[in-house]
């Protein structure tokens, strides 16, 4: 149709995709190590958003501190979640289906806990940066979206380097390929898994704050992560570059479907994509070998 619309759609799609990618990383990290889809990740994102919201609106802290607080808060919640809900199952070597069911239970539990304690009303973050809009060839994007996008890229790259270059990263990769062998070699598995959840939770905190600023904060906001799950599947569950690429691809494709076909068809399309990938390419675009992850 219009050339302006094409560029605008692309920019919007990338900005949505950046957030999907941030959320997908959390799924992929946990999946790569424990081999199950942690559906409680969405609830951790939601709690991260509430932590950030409390710091921002009750204590009026600056954006950087809010983000750091949310990362720390969501990271701890994720670790706690693992200790309470998954670790005993893990030690008993329960099938990953049980872990997944436990994760779903956690998601519903945490959501209802927020309903019962904080309530169901909607909240918005204060406007940290005002409303600054950047114009690119007639298309517009807010400064926040550009910032969030770049931050997502840097954070995911940082995580990638951490896993490839550091001792702990090597331990995580060892755990990914063989957990038993890894523990025989003297790696403290509980500590290793706690670190993995801390990292996933940290990313959940970032995603929660960005989601909260872009949209709103409310108990069921975590359900948007089913899109992140699709992104993780497209990229290959367990693959970090895959999570990034999957998120961006899904964001852009969705926005184009909304703009050029029908916005009502968008989710039909996204979930068809999920089914198609699960049927024909369960390892996604990047996870070519299911043994090699992260």
């Amino acid at each position, binding site marked *: *149709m*219009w050339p*302006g*619309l094409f560029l*605008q*759609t692309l920019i*919007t799609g990338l900005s*949505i995709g950046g957030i999907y990618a941030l959320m997908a990383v959390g799924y992929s990290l946990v999946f790569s190590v424990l081999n199950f889809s942690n559906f409680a990740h969405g609830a951790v994102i939601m709690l991260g958003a509430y932590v950030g919201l409390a710091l921002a609106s009750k204590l009026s802290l600056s954006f950087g501190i809010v983000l750091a607080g949310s990362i720390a808060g969501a990271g701890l919640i994720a670790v706690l979640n693992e200790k309470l809900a998954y670790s005993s199952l893990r030690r008993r070597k329960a099938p990953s289906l049980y872990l997944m069911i436990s994760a779903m239970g956690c998601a519903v539990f945490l959501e209802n806990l927020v*309903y019962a304690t904080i*309530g*169901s*009303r*909607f*909240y*918005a973050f204060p*406007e940290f940066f*005002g*409303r600054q*809009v950047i*114009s690119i060839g007639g298309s*517009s*994007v*807010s400064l*926040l*979206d550009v910032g969030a996008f770049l931050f997502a890229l840097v954070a995911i790259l940082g995580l990638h380097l951490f896993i490839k270059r550091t001792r702990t990263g090597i331990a995580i990769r060892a755990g990914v390929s063989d957990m038993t062998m890894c523990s025989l070699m003297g790696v403290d598995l509980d500590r290793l898994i706690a670190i993995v959840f801390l990292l996933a939770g940290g990313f959940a905190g970032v995603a929660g704050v960005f989601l909260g600023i*872009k*949209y*709103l904060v*409310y108990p*069921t906001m975590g*359900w*948007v992560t089913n899109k992140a799950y699709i992104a993780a599947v497209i990229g290959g569950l367990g693959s970090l570059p895959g999570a990034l690429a999957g998120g961006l691809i899904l964001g852009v494709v*969705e*926005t184009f479907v*909304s*703009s050029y076909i029908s*916005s*009502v068809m*968008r*989710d039909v399309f996204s979930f068809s994509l999920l089914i198609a990938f699960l049927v024909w390419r369960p390892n996604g675009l990047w996870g070519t070998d299911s043994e090699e992850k992260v």
Partner: protein
Amino acid sequence: MKKIAVVLAAVMVFVLAGAVCAQEVISIGHTVSLTGGASMWGQSEARALDMLAKKINDAGGVLGKKIEFVRYDNRNDGVEAVNVARRLVSDGVVAVIGPAQSGNSIASAPVFERGKIPMVVTTATNPYVTIDQRSGKVRPYAFRPCFIDPFQGTVAARFAVTDLGAKKGAILYDVGSDYGQWLAKYFEEAFVEKGGTIVAKEAFRTDELDYRAQLGKIKELTPDVIFIPTSQKEAAMAAKQARDLGIEAVLLGTDNWGSPDLIELGGSAIDGGYFVNLADLADPDIQDFVAEYKALFGEEPVLPNPVMAQDALIMIVEALKAAGSTDGEKLADALANLKDIKVTSGPLTINPEDHNPLDKPAVIQQVDVANRTFKFVKKYFSVD
């Protein structure tokens, strides 16, 4: 065996006591969203009703009996609303207040009709709440104290064309909501009739968060005004995203915008937007109510639901008095013939033909973020 007999006897006593007690009070059902996206209004609605019921009971009740509420949370969900309706019917309530939303009301109406229990909805403005869409006939047990959407949509369109001077209009609405779908249609019809052109009509699905794909299309068509018939949550997000895309058009909404947190949620993006509402905090008619509510609960009521719920309760009370009975059929007949009664929002007469009020005005309010308030702009009594 003896133990069982004792237990049975105890149960019998309770049942009998319950039956005796039931005669002492008049049970009125209340189907309301105490949780879920509409809970802000629902909670406020429940408070306002309890406040008024206490006053009525302190003054001697109705027909010599006290009124009490049987209240269930419908979570603003169509399926749950029907479950609640069934429960209320089996509880044997005399009449029902609620639901507040058109979709839930349309889903609940047949259940109450079969149970022959009059339902007085609070803020459900869709015409098909009181009229059966298939037969075109009035639903004998459905009533409301609020204006209806064709009126609201027409008021919005007229305001856009005459007061804002809009020529090109766009619509962004929720395809999953009866409320939004029909208002989009009424606005479009009235806007075109007044000489404007609708350049874009874009839909999103319920619970979707990002409307930038739709707004991107709207932006290309440079409308003067964007009509967004949604609740405050979607309106706030749509406003933020529209401004992020550099859209300068005036934003125009409907009565569901009218929640105080619209300003908090929408921030600077929603500033200057207009919307149609059922009641205005500054309306002289409701000052006593607002003062009483504030004194009791320490905060302002979340309009318009508390006011409309009180109106619904007063309608039921007046109808009970007129009918002199709690029989559903007689009560429905009395409700249909209510004339010149005094409700919280002003005077009220029900049109027996369609069970809608004859005389409910609509106000236009403007969002003023700096002063954190909705400014009164204009009041429409009719659009003829």
